């Protein structure tokens, strides 16, 4: 910058920063110092220092201005002080409406900030990885007979094939999620660890977390090595270094080769522990083209042609899958899914972590905006109403010679002051309530997020915008009136009234929509939780057996031990239970004309499973312990599987032979059971086969017969201690764990509940304020009516009537909007309610009740007032 410009800028600034009565000496001093610096330090430095000194001269305002020659130059400061004084007097005089005004805006702003944080968090999923735009997941769709199933994971063969065939691929990554592991630390502590994965060495190029200890490029190379997240490492080892330690994980020994930074929560997997991929050895399942077990990722070169690549991989199966897909009317299609789209856009089954819902994000954004709009409308509305009470003050100022500009400045300034105070209060409320909000949404937001530049800028511009908006009416309209009109008693103008009524209607429409939305979310939740799942869920106690154990020896022992308890009706063992992960394996049918391989869910069970779970056999027979051949040799399948193989009736399925990819055994279908929902009520039932394989059993399910759960639990725990003296007793109830799947919806419902409550609350604040003003304006009218013999109830009606009409209009407007919104939200559920009109009526009723309560409080108060008082006052 040129020396002159900087110097000029400095002195221009000084005009504003230095009080007038000091300007001469201060500017002289600065000039002198500037000149002496000019030669010693050069133009630029001197200019910068001058500017800094000009800025810091603002502190001179702290001086008492009673110094000599300052006299009349300070008029605008006097006025400023005066305005400030008047503003605070008004705040005090109308204390209750001031409180409503400021409080309502603050609550609105806090709600908006919190919702914005949540929305931003949801949108930020999987965008923290370096070059996340180049990272894609490969999911697949399997179709047969017009029935398409979508899998988020694919066969282990995909990654190496892509790397070999497509030059666009820079790198690939395969993961395999393990079930809960039993981890023993060197000092013999036991932990059940979830979120354990086998991961290839390329992990750190996809999920770019820093290694806190160990080397990212070599940590996952050798078999039986493990990398811990920093959280996990400190859980096991505290402050001592984890690297080099030996962990026993499900009875295999692993060496800790590194500790990585915790993977951020906004990732579609949680990683507590990474086992090296090579630990899997030469496992046949990895090479099976039909499995869908391994989440697979590719990183494409920055300049790669993504579309061409996507087209190239779509039909990969036709080249490689060792089966004639076309002849079997089967289709395997591989897709390319940007990693950042997984959380909100994926509709593939079997994600490790429940995905977010784009609809929910939209709904929340809309709610956030709505609440903000309600709060702003409220603020503007109340400010306007408050300003009208000051018509006389404005008139007096005009008579005393105030010009329009100074009136506008005064009112704009006052509104700005209020909105700024609101914002500050909002920040305080935000910090105080954040921990509680974190608990509600299950995310850990830091209060320091307020210090980010976007938020500071946002809040400042919000205060400005709202302040100006709220100051606009009083500033421009009041200042334009003829002062004569303002002194006339009751000379109210009706200019603002239509606008204010429109605002009340707007606020209440929004509130009613929110109430309807909240009620609908909870009803849908209830609906899903109460759904007939097709199996017993009541009093089903599940005991997972973690870590290795000799099942063949223990099997009978377990059944006898638990079966002998008085509280126990049935005991069964299975590989998993409904609502928990069920494995997916390839399954092949040999038929003369139409042999096909499909991927299907396998549940390995023992003889009592069907009985314990209350499954209904609709064709063929159940497993029978009396026939030794049922072990390994037989399948019972569900109706969905029947359909998937193309049989028209369950009976057709009986007698067919299937070959399972899980170990390659063949078995005959002996029965078909009625579909039961083994995943989640918001999904269609997938094909499932049951098979008796005793090595795979790892979970005990106990059906209790008594209502006395605590006693039953004690008995069960004692038996557990006899059977597994070295394993901790860990249990859950089937219905609870099944319903835990809906935690996401429940969370949505709770958040919605709170924010719709806040929205209504803010709207009521506004209504209350307006009713107060209306009652005050009608003080004389009420007084005269009372003198003439009107009853309290008819007076109350007089004041309330107008508001009732407004709210009724609002309710009418809200219904179609709510219908549309609710219908849209419900579409995402396979098993859903339809919009319920009775909920609409309830919501409308709630709004109306709240209105009556809010308005009549004020109306009754004024109706009860002594008419002598109100008529004597000079309205």
């Amino acid at each position, binding site marked *: 910058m040129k020396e002159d410009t900087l110097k000029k800028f400095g002195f221009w600034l000084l005009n504003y920063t230095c009080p007038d009565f000091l300007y001469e*000496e201060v500017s002289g*001093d600065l000039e002198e*110092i500037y000149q002496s610096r000019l030669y010693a330090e050069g133009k630029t430095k001197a200019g910068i220092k001058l500017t800094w000194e000009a800025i*810091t001269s603002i502190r*001179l305002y702290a*001086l008492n201005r009673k*110094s000599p020659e300052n006299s009349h130059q300070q008029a605008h400061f006097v006025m400023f002080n005066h305005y400030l004084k008047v503003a605070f007097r008004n705040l005090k005089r109308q204390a209750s409406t001031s409180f409503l005004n400021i409080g309502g805006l603050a609550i609105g702003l806090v709600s908006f900030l919190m919702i914005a944080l949540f929305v931003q968090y949801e949108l930020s999923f999987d965008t923290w990885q370096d070059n996340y735009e180049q990272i894609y997941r490969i999911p697949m769709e399997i179709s047969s007979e017009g029935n398409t199933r979508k899998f988020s994971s694919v066969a282990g063969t995909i990654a190496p094939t892509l790397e070999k065939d497509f030059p666009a691929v820079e790198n690939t990554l395969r993961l395999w999620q393990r079930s809960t592991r039993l981890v023993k630390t060197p000092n013999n502590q036991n932990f059940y660890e979830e979120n354990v994965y086998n991961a290839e060495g390329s992990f750190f190029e996809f999920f770019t977390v820093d290694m806190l200890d160990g080397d990212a490029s070599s940590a996952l190379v050798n078999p039986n090595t493990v990398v811990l997240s920093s959280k996990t490492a400190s859980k096991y080892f505290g402050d001592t270094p984890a690297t080099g330690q030996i962990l026993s994980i499900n009875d295999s020994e692993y060496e800790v080769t590194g500790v990585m930074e915790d993977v951020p929560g906004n990732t579609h997997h949680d990683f507590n522990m990474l086992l090296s991929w090579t630990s899997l050895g030469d496992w046949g399942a990895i090479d099976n083209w039909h499995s869908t077990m391994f989440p697979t990722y590719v990183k494409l070169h920055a300049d790669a042609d993504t579309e061409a690549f996507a087209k190239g991989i779509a039909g990969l199966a036709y080249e490689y899958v060792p089966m004639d897909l076309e002849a079997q009317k089967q289709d395997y299609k591989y897709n390319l899914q940007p990693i950042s789209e997984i959380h909100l856009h994926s509709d593939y089954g079997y994600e490790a972590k429940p995905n977010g819902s784009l609809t929910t994000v939209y709904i929340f954004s809309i709610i956030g905006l709505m609440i903000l709009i309600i709060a702003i409308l409220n603020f503007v509305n109340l400010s306007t109403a408050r300003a009208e009470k000051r018509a006389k003050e404005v008139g007096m100022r005009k008579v005393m010679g105030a010009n329009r500009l100074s009136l506008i400045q005064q009112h704009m300034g006052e509104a700005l002051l209020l909105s700024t105070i609101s914002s500050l209060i909002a920040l305080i409320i935000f910090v105080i309530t954040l921990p509680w909000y974190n608990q509600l949404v299950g995310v850990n937001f830091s209060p320091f997020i307020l210090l980010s530049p976007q938020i500071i800028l946002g809040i400042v511009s919000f205060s400005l915008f709202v302040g100006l908006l709220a100051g606009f009416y009083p500033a421009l309209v009041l200042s334009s009136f003829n002062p004569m009109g303002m002194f006339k008693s009751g000379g109210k103008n009706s200019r603002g009234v239509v606008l204010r009524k429109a605002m009340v209607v707007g606020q209440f429409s929004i509130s009613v929509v929110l109430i309807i939305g909240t009620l609908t979310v909870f009803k849908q939740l209830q609906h899903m939780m109460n759904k007939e799942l097709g199996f017993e869920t009541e009093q089903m106690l599940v005991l997972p057996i973690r870590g290795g154990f000799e099942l063949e020896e223990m099997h009978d022992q377990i059944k006898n031990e638990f079966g002998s308890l008085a509280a126990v009706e049935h005991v069964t063992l299975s590989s998993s239970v409904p609502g928990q992960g069920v494995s997916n394996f390839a399954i092949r049918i040999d038929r003369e004309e139409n042999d096909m391989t499909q991927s299907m869910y396998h549940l390995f069970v023992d003889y009592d499973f069907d009985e314990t779970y209350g499954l209904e056999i609709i064709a063929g027979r159940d497993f029978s312990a009396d026939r030794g051949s049922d072990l390994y040799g037989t399948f019972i399948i569900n109706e969905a599987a029947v359909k998937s193989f193309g049989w028209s009736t369950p009976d057709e399925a009986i007698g067919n032979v299937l070959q399972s990819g899980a170990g390659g055994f063949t078995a005959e279908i002996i029965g078909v059971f009625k579909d039961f929902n083994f995943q989640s009520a918001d999904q269609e039932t997938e094909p499932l086969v049951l098979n008796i394989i005793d090595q795979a059993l790892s979970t005990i399910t106990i059906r209790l017969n008594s209502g006395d759960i605590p006693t039953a639990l004690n008995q069960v725990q004692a038996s557990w201690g006899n059977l597994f003296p070295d394993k901790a007793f860990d249990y859950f109830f089937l219905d609870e764990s099944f319903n835990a799947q809906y935690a996401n919806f429940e969370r949505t419902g709770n958040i919605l509940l709170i924010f719709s409550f806040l929205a209504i609350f803010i709207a009521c604040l506004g209504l209350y304020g307006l009713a107060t003003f209306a009652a005050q304006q009608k003080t004389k009218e009420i007084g005269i009516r009372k003198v003439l013999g009107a009853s309290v109830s008819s007076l109350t009606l007089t004041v309330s009537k107008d508001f009732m009409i407004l709210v009724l209009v609002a309710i009418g407007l809200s219904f179609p909007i709510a219908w549309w919104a609710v219908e849209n939200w419900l579409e995402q559920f396979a098993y859903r309610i339809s919009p319920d009109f009775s909920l609409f009526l309830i919501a409308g009723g709630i709004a109306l009740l709240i209105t009556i309560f809010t308005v009549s409080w004020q109306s009754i108060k004024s109706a009860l007032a002594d008419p002598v008082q109100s008529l004597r006052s000079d309205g």
Partner: protein
Amino acid sequence: MKYLVMKGTDLGALEELVLLATASISDEAYAVIIKDEIETQSGRSLNISSIHTTLHRLEEKGFLKSEMGGATAERGGRRKRYFKPTNLGFDALREARQLRTHFWNLIPQFQN
């Protein structure tokens, strides 16, 4: 002897320094000169606006008096404000020094 000072007449550290500097410059002491003086004597670098506030505050307290004058070309023809300590100002300095000496005498390490 009591060394507690009446409220409103106490001297802050910077105020004392500025007052001392003003007193030590025999005449025509104004902000720039005072700033230079303090900077050369103490090696501390100061912002001119803090000198301005301090000088005016000292004047409010009655420790300094001032008059305008001495416009020069290098100041763009603007006048300076000259400051002079009042008797009250000298008293305040003396009092501050006595307070200090008193404490010095109380420190065992400094007594031979």
